[in-house]
């Protein structure tokens, strides 16, 4: 049995196990924290920053990413606060510029009052949650797609040589994509690099 850790989330006393993240502790107690790049089968990645929560230490507070922050004895966590909501709203507005019709994003946008037209739209669809890339590497262990380039030019890309062999029988990443861009990218690489019907 691992050590028990006691913390407070949104005013509730929670018992968690040592080594758990704040997100896991909250979820296990039925407290909802929104996520985009988190998946229970994958290593926490801390990329989307949507799961940020506010920690209270006496008279000062700190924003942390709950999917990687580990529980500590006596921790006081707020999953909603002015600061937390503002941060989530900002993140959602930035992402909506890429995928204004993603059902997951629009539902969250409604909850946090995010304006989908806040920023100039960019028809690139991918929100870089990395779920597909990490699923393929960590669960499927195929490494059939990866990120290329960096910063604002970063995008996901299938590696045709591997994708041609592995993807048709797997497609495990397809349901993970919050924007359907992944499927589009796959169809594109398939038609360009390894057409199944092409002679």
């Amino acid at each position, binding site marked *: 049995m691992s050590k028990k850790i006691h913390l407070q989330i949104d005013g509730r006393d929670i018992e968690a196990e040592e080594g758990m993240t704040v997100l896991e502790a909250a979820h296990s107690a039925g407290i909802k924290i929104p996520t985009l790049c988190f998946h229970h089968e994958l290593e*926490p*990645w*801390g*990329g*989307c*920053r*949507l799961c*940020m929560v506010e920690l209270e230490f006496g008279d000062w507070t700190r*924003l*942390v*990413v709950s999917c*990687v*922050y*580990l529980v500590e004895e006596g921790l006081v966590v707020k999953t909603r606060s002015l*600061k937390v909501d503002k*941060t989530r709203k*900002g*993140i959602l507005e*930035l*992402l909506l*510029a*890429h995928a204004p019709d993603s059902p997951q994003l629009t539902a969250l946008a409604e909850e946090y009052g995010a304006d989908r037209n806040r*920023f*100039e739209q*960019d028809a690139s669809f991918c*929100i*870089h949650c*990395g779920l597909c890339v990490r699923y393929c590497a960590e669960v499927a262990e195929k490494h059939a797609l990866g*990120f290329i*380039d*960096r*910063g*604002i*030019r*970063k995008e996901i890309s299938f590696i045709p040589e591997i994708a041609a062999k592995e993807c048709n029988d797997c497609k495990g990443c397809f349901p993970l994509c919050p924007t359907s861009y992944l499927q589009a990218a796959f169809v594109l690489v398939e038609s360009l690099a390894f057409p199944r019907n092409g002679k």
Partner: protein
Amino acid sequence: MTQLKSPEELDNYRQTLSSGRDANMPCISICAGTGCLAYGAAEVIGAFKAEIEKQGLTAKVDTKGTGCPGYCEKGPVVVIYPEEICYLGVMPEDVPEIITQTIVGKKVVDRLVYSDPDSGEKAIHEADIPYYKHQKRFLLSSNTLIDSRSIDDYLLINGYSALSKALFQMTAEEVVDEVKKSKLRGRGGGGFPTGRKWEGSREAPGEVKYVLVNADEGDPGAFMDRALLEGNPHSILEGLIIGGYAIGAHEGYIYVRQEYPLAVENIKLAIEQAEEYGLLGKDILGSGFDFTVKVHQGAGAFVCGESTALMTALEGRAGEPRPKYVRSNVKGLWNRPSVLNNVETWANVPLIINRGADWFTQYGTQGSKGTKIFSLVGKITNTGLVEVPMGITLRDIIYKIGGGIPGGKKFKAIQTGGPSGGCIPETLLDLEVGFDELTEAGSMMGSGGMIVMDEDTCMVDVARYFIHFLADESCGKCVPCREGLRQMDRILKKITEGRGEEGDTKTLEELSELAIDASLCALGKSAPNPLLSTLRYFKDEYEAHIKEKRCPALSCKELISYYIDPEKCLACLACMRKCPVDGISGGKNRIHVIDQEKCTSCGTCLDVCPAKFDAVVKYSGEPVPPPIPEEKRTIDRKKKK
């Protein structure tokens, strides 16, 4: 060379070296740093060697290609020992005269020494030149004394004595304590207390630990670490070995950017030499302490200067920072305790061990001790590297050392701390330079870049430039940095192009807040600095761009128009011929007129208009005067004179 097996053998070897050299033998040291090499220092070195041979002085004179002494503005820099005569801007054709006059005749060549631009007063020795006079060069001063490729030269200036002292006269805890007592703070940007970082690693559980050198100097316009690595690689190596001993690490890595080929070459050579001498490898100097060093070349990503991204890159993966809330001195490279310090921090270590923490703390301010190297660039008379005690004012750096702003222009701002630093205005020039002081002013120490800007610089455009740089260099992993910078870059571009709207600055502030609060690493958290500091100190410039569509610095291309003053134009045809869009009408004896419809604001007319006419002027925020009527365009030469 047989390996040195004890501190006594090291001392004896040093003694042998020293008695084998005649201290009075003239030595010509020529800067072979990157800046001077670009000026043609290699040819100067070649010319010295040829001339010495020609005059039959080979046995009597020594020549050295050294590291950078810092006065890049006046390169190639040549210092002649033992008299320490400093010649500036030396060209191969000056060499025979220097040999005949100074080496043989013991006379100074007047025209090559420093001459004050105002008073004309000459200064023969480095210490008397204003550029050097106000500096405290503990780290850089060794650069001109040694051939950067010679370990013997380094030993002759007491090199590796700090290592010997640490290994034989101090326990590892004592070394950590000394560094803690010195209050040395990380020179790479964060300013974290070095001793505390070391202590954390020393106490962290684990058999295998690492010490790492961050030589991924990526700030535009910064070359402090480059000068140290190229000029005095052994000093960094010595610091690193001492650090390894202190925290209990037996392996070190030097992460150096590939874009620094000379630095890579020199540090690799230094490692080979140190191994050959028994100063690196197994049982160093017979102490029983083993330590090896490997060089890793970065692939050119700014974000890899961030500590966890650097470690991820060292592990062989894409250089992205780690999201975990664990200090890397406890769990760093391959999840083992790792101390990562910047080049300049490591170079300070041998000095602190040799001279003691008390010596070190006598320089600087309450919170920032010792000296700091800055690369002083931009609109400044003396471009170069300066090493100053912490606590010196920005004004002294700019005016006493830097020689002020060239061309009679007015100072506007100084940007410190690299791309994610901030711009500090004239009203704060008396600010004492220190980690906390700069942060309070909305900028940061960073690794030591200082870019001086004059009245012709548009501060909105400066913010746009740096935000664009950071958007490009962001790793792209987290949303507030990648997407936030993308939008900030867009809005700033829009403003500089005259398409800014009411509310843009508020959006910029909100995006900045998000990036600071929610970004994964220091790149994103500090990225808004150039934007926020210019908004804080130069808000009027933002407003002029947005509300009046005017660029007060007359710099943003989309917001300025060019106009030829008919009173001044003497119809020389220069601008007409050079205008790339044939947008200037006129002719011989006919006043030239710019067709505003055709003009692309490229500025060529302004550049080519002879200074004595000075007829082309820029307008912003107001229409240019109507063209002078056709019938009045013929020039009456008599009247004009």
